[in-house]
């Protein structure tokens, strides 16, 4: 409401908000009429109810005549009571004396009536030429009270004072009790702002600047905080990744141990073929090349572990989800074996790459596979098999499915399984699936869980495939090419 402005019709003032209470000092009747005609005309043209209180020497007839010249439709406005012109005697001095409360009450009555009739508001002007010394103090009080009375109302008030009747003290009183004053100086109208108004404006300006400064500061604080939050999330993801890997450290160590054992064995065999009594360079070369191959396998495993433990900036590249799955399974193989679990793999022969952060996508698979492994731990009456499938979904999505034969999902809790810190496992952190969801969300994908048939749970996610137009032609996943030492039995038990 406070922001709605009205035309005053007075050039030097321009627009005013509702709740404006200002004054005007005039020398001559012409000056007064000149201003008030414009003021009332603007009000009538803006659907306002106008009340003009005239005082001697100006008469109602003179006011009407002047207004008629400026407002061609005046008769219509008068007929529907859009404007009332009354004399000060009838308005301020009803019953012979000035009664502050009665006059204020009368304004509000006019306001209520105008508002009920659908006017935009009430525009008032009142002349004070009738004012006598004895009423001056009361009238000042009334003027002062008006400031509060008009605030937050659809009401504007212009009080006019004849300069001739005002001494210096009176002018000071008038200026003090109005928001601003208009006076004719050097042949043109000027606005005289009160010190209080100036101060208020300066204060508003200062507050605005302070506010802007605080907005700038808060914005930069928020940006820092959100940066810190992102870092904390990355750290949390890394820590949970390390915790998950910590659970399977022994098994992962075994993945390195296995090819290294072969290196030692092949090395010994190679040495044998190099001995004098049994020299066979062909067989020695063959054993040596197996040694190299097995050492490279050990190296591959270490590379995969490194990929999961490094602290890296998010970096999106083309990622082959089949390669990611094989990478993680290469690390989890011994764990699965130890727990007498098997994996049935049904990976799409050709799968478009997804555009994503490799470490995050590896963590996604690590978490889903660990989730399945842990879900199947208590199972004793059926083969513990984890099924992992990939396929193209629709025309442009990659779908990955991980199904376990564990205890399944509690229908009451299924909605919450992706929530942070929600866990059904005694030693769970509750972060595994929450991280899965945040990784999926960061990659514009979807993840959902449903019951496995006849046992267990099924987790599925889709990720948008890299559009052919964005696809880079460099080899996307060296991991897939380096996939090596997962025994052939893994998919066929």
């Amino acid at each position, binding site marked *: 409401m406070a922001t709605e402005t009205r035309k005053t019709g007075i050039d030097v003032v321009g627009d005013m908000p509702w709740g404006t209470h200002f004054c005007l000092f005039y020398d001559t009747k012409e000056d007064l009429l000149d201003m008030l005609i414009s003021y009332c005309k603007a009000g009538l043209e803006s659907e306002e109810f106008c009340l003009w209180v005239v005082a001697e020497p100006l008469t109602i007839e003179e006011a009407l005549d002047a207004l008629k010249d400026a407002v061609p439709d005046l008769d219509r406005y008068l007929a529907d009571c859009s404007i009332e012109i009354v004399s000060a005697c009838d308005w301020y001095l009803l019953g012979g004396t000035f009664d502050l409360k009665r006059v204020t009450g009368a304004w509000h009555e006019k306001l209520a009536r105008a508002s009920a009739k659908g006017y935009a508001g009430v525009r008032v002007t009142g002349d004070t030429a009738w004012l006598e010394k004895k009423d001056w103090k009361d009238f000042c009080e009334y003027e002062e009270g008006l400031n509060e009375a008009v605030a937050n109302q659809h009401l504007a008030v212009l009080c006019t004072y004849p300069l001739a009747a005002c001494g210096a003290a009176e002018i000071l009183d008038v200026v003090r009790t109005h928001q601003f004053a208009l006076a004719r100086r050097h042949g043109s109208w000027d606005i005289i702002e009160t010190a209080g108004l100036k101060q208020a404006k300066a204060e508003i300006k200062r507050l605005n600047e302070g506010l802007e400064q605080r907005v700038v500061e808060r914005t930069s604080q928020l940006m820092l905080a959100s940066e810190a939050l992102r870092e904390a999330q990355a750290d949390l993801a890394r820590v949970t990744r390390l915790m998950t890997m910590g659970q399977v450290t022994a098994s992962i160590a075994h993945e390195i141990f296995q090819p290294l054992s072969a290196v030692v*064995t092949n090395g010994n065999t190679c040495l044998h073929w190099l001995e004098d009594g049994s020299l066979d360079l062909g*067989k020695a070369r063959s054993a040596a090349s197996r040694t190299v191959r097995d050492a490279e396998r050990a190296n591959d495993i270490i590379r995969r572990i490194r990929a999961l433990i490094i602290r890296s900036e998010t970096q999106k590249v083309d990622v082959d989800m089949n390669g990611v799955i094989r990478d993680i399974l290469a690390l989890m193989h011994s764990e699965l074996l130890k727990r007498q679990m098997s994996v049935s793999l049904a990976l799409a022969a050709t799968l478009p790459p997804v555009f994503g952060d490799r470490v995050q996508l590896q963590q996604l698979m690590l978490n889903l596979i660990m989730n399945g492994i842990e879900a199947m731990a208590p199972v004793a009456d059926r083969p513990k098999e984890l099924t992992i499938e990939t396929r193209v979904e629709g025309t442009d999505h990659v779908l990955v499915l991980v199904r376990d034969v564990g205890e399944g999902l509690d229908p009451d809790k299924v909605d919450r399984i992706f929530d942070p810190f929600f866990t059904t496992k005694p030693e769970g952190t509750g972060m595994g699936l929450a991280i899965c969801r945040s990784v999926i969300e960061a990659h514009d994908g979807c993840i959902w869980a449903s019951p496995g048939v006849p046992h267990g749970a099924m987790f599925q996610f889709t990720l948008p495939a890299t559009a052919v137009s964005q696809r880079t032609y460099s080899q996307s996943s060296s991991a897939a090419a380096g996939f090596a030492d997962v025994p052939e039995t893994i998919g066929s038990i």
Partner: protein
Amino acid sequence: MGRVENTALISIADDGESFRTAVRDMVESFGFTATAFTSGVKFLGLDRVQDSACLIADLRMPGMSGFELHDRLVATGRSIPTTFLTAFPDAKGNDRAAKAGAVAYLSKPCHRDDLLARIRSTARRL
């Protein structure tokens, strides 16, 4: 150490490709004929049991462990001298291997001389 000319068939069961091949090569370097299987189940399924002079079996294999394979052979009256290889040697496993009547319980990677000695001792038993 000279080459031992011996046509006896040595069977190997290990699910890990690297080590399985390495052991097979090593056994062949001893002068034996060697054949390798990816699991105990495969070994039984292909029925090379009768031909095998001895068996070198990994303990931890999917589907059927080395111990289970040995037990199965004993239960079906087809017991063959068996050397267990394990990446996780412990006293409990050692006891169980001894009770099962195994030739040896060796930790991976096994020393060339150790493995040869076990196979030779097996050959003498044959």
